[in-house]
């Protein structure tokens, strides 16, 4: 029962963290609110992100010698800009509903008096939670929500570190055109996406981008999330047999697609997963062996020894008892580090000063946990240096294969599967 040990371990770590915070009461701790789906359908992602952020806070509060060589904030002893104030994380459960997300944002602001908020995973919930932060003048940073309209609302307190659909679409397009140049057949592309805010938005942006770039999308299959069965979809694919299939799915459906494709014995020459479910540690653990050679988009891909991603991943593994950081938890951690950096530079818990510091953020690629080229926000709060890696499943784990300058392995095609 690895879960049990993990739970016990996590509990002990939380208690220890609490002890440290109360012990060092010299300086008022800086409270950061974190809203995630800790129950409901997306709870798995939420709970992993929560642990990743806890690792981040631990590094900021207690230091890590290796990381300190690369990023100043990891020196330990809290936030130097605030006289060594520790960071205190206040987690809240959005229960997967926009209403709970907003209610909890208000609680964090008014009761917990947090200096800033990170959250809320699902775009719909980020909409409602960030609206409250905006009205109260509290900085709100989302590290995962990709809905395009989030940064189009004219908000002054809203920031987003994650790349969005258009970034992904460009990455796929460039990647595929490079493969075509290298002699791979990419004459037909199938888009399989769940009919949710995430699936629809990504799929339509990809379709548009591909049309622009002359990549033919010959099949678009939308399906309801949490399906009980995906055989008909796979049979449709099998019939048309496209060269490239891109799957935009959460975990439950990712598992079903993988199993069903294996059952029905169909695979495309290039199979691409748009992150999400195919990156879920639960998926990788149980089905990694059935998707050898799967091309995935991820902002996280291990990294070379001694690099920021690698060091954080080791810390994270220690906390979780073996699970690696994945795309979602790494992005969450990245968001937290950006926020911590900004508060440190602001030298104050005054929300306006934190916002100004966020606006002035300029972090280099070398300090990234994720594969971003750095963090720098535009006027709308979007991180203009956000970008994505393309990875491939090799022997049960994802390795970076694109772009070339950050690749740790060579691409192997066609898709092998099982």
């Amino acid at each position, binding site marked *: 029962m690895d879960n049990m040990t993990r739970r016990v371990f996590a509990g002990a770590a939380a208690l220890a963290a609490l002890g440290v915070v109360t012990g060092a009461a010299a300086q008022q701790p800086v409270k950061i609110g974190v809203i995630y789906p800790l129950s409901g359908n997306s709870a798995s992602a939420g709970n992993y992100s929560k642990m990743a952020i806890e690792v981040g806070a631990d590094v900021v509060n207690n230091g890590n010698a290796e990381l300190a060589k690369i990023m100043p904030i990891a020196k330990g002893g809290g936030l130097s800009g605030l006289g060594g104030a520790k960071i205190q994380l206040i987690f809240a459960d959005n229960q997967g509903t926009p209403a709970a997300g907003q209610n909890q944002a208000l609680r964090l602001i008014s009761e917990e008096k947090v200096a800033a908020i990170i959250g809320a995973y699902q775009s719909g919930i980020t909409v409602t939670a960030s609206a409250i932060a905006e009205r109260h003048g509290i900085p709100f940073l989302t590290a995962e929500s990709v809905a395009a309209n989030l940064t189009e609302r004219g908000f002054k307190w809203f920031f987003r570190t994650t790349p969005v659909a258009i970034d992904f679409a460009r990455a796929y397009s460039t990647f595929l055109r490079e493969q075509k140049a290298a002699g791979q057949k990419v004459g037909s592309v199938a888009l399989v996406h769940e009919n949710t805010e995430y699936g629809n938005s990504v799929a339509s942006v990809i379709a548009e981008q591909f049309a622009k770039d002359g990549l033919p999308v010959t099949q678009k299959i939308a*399906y*309801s999330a949490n399906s*009980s*069965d995906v055989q*008909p979809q796979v049979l449709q694919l099998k019939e048309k047999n496209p060269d490239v299939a891109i799957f935009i799915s959460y975990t*439950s459906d990712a598992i079903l697609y993988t199993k069903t494709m294996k*059952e029905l014995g169909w695979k495309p020459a290039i199979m691409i997963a748009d992150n999400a479910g195919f990156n879920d540690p*639960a*998926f990788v653990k149980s089905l990694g062996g059935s998707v050898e050679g799967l091309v995935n988009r991820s902002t996280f891909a291990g990294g070379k020894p001694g690099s920021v991603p690698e060091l954080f991943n080791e810390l994270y593994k220690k906390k979780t008892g073996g699970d690696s950081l994945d795309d979602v938890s790494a992005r969450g951690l990245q968001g937290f580090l950006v926020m911590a950096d900004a508060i440190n530079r602001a030298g104050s818990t005054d929300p306006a000063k934190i916002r100004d510091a966020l606006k002035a953020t300029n972090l280099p690629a070398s300090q990234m946990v994720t594969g971003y080229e750095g963090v720098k926000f535009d006027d709308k709060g979007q991180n203009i240096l956000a970008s994505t890696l393309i990875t491939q499943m090799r022997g049960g784990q994802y390795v970076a294969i694109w772009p070339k300058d950050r690749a740790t392995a060579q691409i192997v095609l066609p898709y092998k599967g099982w």
Partner: protein
Amino acid sequence: MTLVQVIVSGLLLGAVYALFSSGLTLIWGMMNVVNFAHGDFVMLGMYTAVVIWTALGGGPFAAVPAAAIVIATLGVLSYFLLVRHIMRGPMLAQILGTFGLALFLRYAAFWTFGADFKTLPDTLIGGSFTLGGIRFEGSRVLAGVGGLLITLLLHLILTRTSVGSRMLAVSEDATAAQLMGIRPQRMQALAWAMAGAATGIAGALIATFFYTSPTVGETLAILAFVTVSFGGFGSVLGALVAGLIIGVVESLSAYLIGPVYKDVVVYVLFVLVLWFRPQGLMGKA
């Protein structure tokens, strides 16, 4: 050929729907109770299988009977501690009580097992085979055939055995059943045990090809409700027929119209059935 494959996979899926609906319909038929926690019974059956199979290394032969026993016990406990008391109250009390039970079980599982998706290893029944150009996946065939067998078995127990006859007697007229020397509460508890066992087996079989998570019951519960009222509350055979119809309709509409619309087709069909046959396909008027 693809169409045949679609229909075959729909039939197999339908048999599974029938399997996880049979417990629900049995309880309804016996005592006019709709168990809103049914999906979560299935979910716990799945977890039992996962725990026995992987964590304890029991493999499939221990997992299926263990799930049956665990969920049967859960059913009997639910009957004595909750259902027995709320079935005397208004119908709303049933919704209130079993909905509360659903939340409790779902998040008790969450608390115990975490939010992760779990899947069973592919060993033993993971393979697939081809028969006349149609591909069959071992675990689905097992689940589909298991579904057919369990549903038929339940049907046979009810219609062909003396204990089934006694259960039906209690469900029709509990007072008259007492005149035959039958203790109604015992038969009702037995019905919960049987329904629980069928539901547990359903969970264990589904776990072989589906993912397991604390909220998976929600996905399955609505399907079970539709299957049961489609087939007619209380009719095990109705659930089987309805399950097969829904499975095939889903598969065909997903393939021919588009996966997003398969639920639309199923719900429209369901509403039409209720319009023309308010008691469901095989329900009693």
